[in-house]
């Protein structure tokens, strides 16, 4: 149905549903991961902080107890190096140099007293001093020359100097980065996979819905006896199909009932009519004097009018209920109108009326030819009966992309204004009309049953105009050479 758009898939409901579902899923999993990430990061930090605090305490103890002699530096350095080997979360040390841990002891403003770690420690001391705020809990420290920040814990000694123990956050960050990378990879895979599954499933489901829709619209247009496919599914869509079919059952049965009623009504009226007419005819064929025969002839005329009225009103009743029996064939409107004009033209010119047809060539529609004949005959009969002499009836037939339009207009007195909007109602007729008031109702009903429409109006320059639009047989668009033909004899 949306075949006119550039990409039908992007406009399908399946696409939209899967897009939204996937988006919700992606955001949800992302949130969960963020929380997990936070929890893991905090936990790692807590562990390293605990280790740092413990070690710096031990180092402080050792520093206090060790005599400040020549061996002091060596002892403390040994202890510090030993401690750095037990670093938590440590993955590997690059080369011999241990750059994941540093230890330094310094006065508040004096030079570096003791240094264990990569480099000479001046940068680290400068960074610590630049921080100014001294706190007892471990804190993050960014040192020039190192890619990753350090986590530093300190302890104050009795001599006023401080011992600082720093642990590089490199390993911790690497663990977290690994985790993020793996998650993102898996997350992308899952989201794509989920999208395709949702898309596939909804597309299948909606394709089935589309099949139902197409079948239902086919049924609406042509026969009521076929049903939408049910595929024996027991889900919502299966129920939809079943419900549709139940509805169609009911429509078909009420349609059938209507046909039965109109048929039996027609039958019950026609049989006596036939018998009466036959007997009248037999009575007429005997030796009847002219003055006795005249009433019989007029009785037969009345009977025929009654029959015609019965036929048309039943047709109109059925058509109004959309139950008109239509057998569609391909009909060329142009040819049909020409034949009808050929039939009516002598009679019209006898009455002093002129007929002209303007048509751009063949216009093919799918319609019931017999009903079409009656529609056009009705319109032309109307013109014949109501137009005064020397008027012109002009018919125009043209086709656009989707509809054929037949306009019948005249330059006569026009429609009775009093009738107005009720023009197409049954039994509505002009004041002076001798007809049974079903003609236009029948025309409208037949056209509507074929999916077309009729409008009637009085032309501003005088005269009546009736415009019928008819859906074209779109399966094959007939050629439309734009020639102008005039049938005006």
């Amino acid at each position, binding site marked *: 149905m949306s075949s006119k758009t550039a990409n039908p898939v992007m406009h399908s409901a399946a696409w939209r549903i899967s897009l939204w579902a996937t988006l919700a899923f992606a955001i949800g999993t992302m949130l969960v991961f963020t929380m997990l990430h936070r929890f893991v990061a905090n936990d790692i930090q807590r562990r390293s902080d605990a280790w740092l605090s413990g070690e710096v305490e031990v180092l402080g103890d050792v520093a206090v107890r060790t005599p400040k002699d020549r061996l002091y530096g060596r002892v403390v350095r040994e202890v510090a190096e030993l401690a750095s080997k037990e670093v938590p979360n440590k993955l590997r040390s690059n080369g011999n140099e241990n750059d994941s841990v540093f230890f330094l002891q310094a006065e508040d403003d004096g030079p570096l007293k003791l240094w264990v770690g990569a480099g000479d420690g001046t940068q680290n001391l400068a960074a610590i001093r630049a921080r100014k705020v001294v706190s007892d809990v471990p804190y993050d420290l960014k040192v020039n020359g190192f890619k990753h920040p350090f986590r530093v814990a300190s302890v104050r000694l009795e001599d006023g100097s401080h011992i600082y123990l720093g642990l590089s956050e490199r390993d911790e960050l690497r663990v977290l980065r690994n985790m993020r990378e793996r998650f993102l990879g898996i997350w992308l895979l899952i989201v794509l996979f989920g999208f395709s599954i949702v898309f596939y499933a909804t597309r299948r489901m909606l394709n089935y819905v589309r099949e139902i829709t197409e079948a239902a619209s086919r049924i609406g247009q042509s026969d009521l006896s076929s049903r939408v496919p049910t595929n024996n599914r027991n889900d919502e869509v299966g129920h939809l199909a079943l419900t549709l079919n139940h509805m169609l059952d009911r429509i078909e049965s009420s349609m059938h009932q209507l046909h039965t009623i*109109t*048929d039996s009504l*027609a*039958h019950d009226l*026609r*049989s006596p*009519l*036939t*018998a*009466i*007419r*036959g*007997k009248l*005819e*037999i009575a007429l*064929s005997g030796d009847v004097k002219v003055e006795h025969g005249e009433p019989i*002839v007029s009785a*037969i*005329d009345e*009977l025929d*009018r009654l*029959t*015609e009225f019965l*036929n048309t009103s*039943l*047709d109109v009743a059925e058509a109004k209920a959309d139950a008109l*029996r239509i*057998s569609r064939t391909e009909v060329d409107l142009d040819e049909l109108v020409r*034949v009808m004009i*050929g*039939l*009516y033209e*002598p*009679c019209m010119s*006898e009455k002093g009326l002129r007929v002209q047809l303007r048509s751009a060539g063949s216009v093919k529609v799918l319609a019931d030819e*017999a009903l079409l*004949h*009656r529609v056009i*005959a009705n319109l*032309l*009969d109307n013109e*014949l*009966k109501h137009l005064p002499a020397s008027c012109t009836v002009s018919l125009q037939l043209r086709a656009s992309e989707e509809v054929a339009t037949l306009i019948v207009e005249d330059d006569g007195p026009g429609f009775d204004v009093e009738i107005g909007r009720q023009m197409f109602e049954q039994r509505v007729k002009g004041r002076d009309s001798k*007809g049974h008031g079903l003609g236009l109702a029948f025309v409208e009903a037949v056209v509507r049953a074929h999916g077309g429409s009729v409008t009637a109006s009085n032309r501003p320059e005088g005269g009546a105009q009736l415009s019928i639009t008819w859906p074209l047989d779109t399966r094959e668009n007939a050629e439309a050479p734009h020639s102008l033909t005039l049938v005006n004899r």
Partner: protein
Amino acid sequence: MQLLLVEDELEIQGFLKQSLTDAGYEVDAAKDGRTAVQFAAGKKYDVLVVDLGLPDQDGIDLILQLRRSGVSSPVLILSARRSVDDRVKGLEQGGDDYLTKPFALAELLARLRSLLRRNLAASEDATRLRVLDLELDFIRRRASRGGEVLNLSPQEFVLLEYLCRHAGRVVTRSMLLAEVWGMRIQPDTNVVDVHIYRLRGKVDTEGREPLIKTLRGIGYVLKDR
């Protein structure tokens, strides 16, 4: 001519039998499908008149059943249904015809004759046709009377051809509409009559014997004697 009438309404059956007998047919009347089959088994009929609404079976089924048992005579179907359903249209292609009730007796008789004639196969010369001093040349699509060529429009030629093929028989307005114009309509104006008047103006010129006769309330007949 042997005729089998199948009609369940006894009143209709009664007057049909009477007028068909008056028209020269030997009529057997059956009131249901079973009796009709019995009649058809015992005798060969030239034409059948079958009502669609029979008490014991559908008229179409009866016709199909008779066809299967070897009855090949033409059938005139009487129907009380308004719209003629597709099955009747299917049968019509087999040379049969239908009438919707109520109908004019003249119409019934005219259609019966037409059916019987159709059934006689095309015995006429395919290229020309003569009725009295009227001659139709189908190759040149030209008609002449007493050697004098008539100036007819193509439509008038078809109309005259139909009248000539049914010369001596009544043709009704609805027969003309159906056969000449190919439509089943019942216009409540005199459209067909005007065509006949015009044709008569060309065929029955002054000083000639009038050939096209109007039968009031029934139709027309082209004299052949």
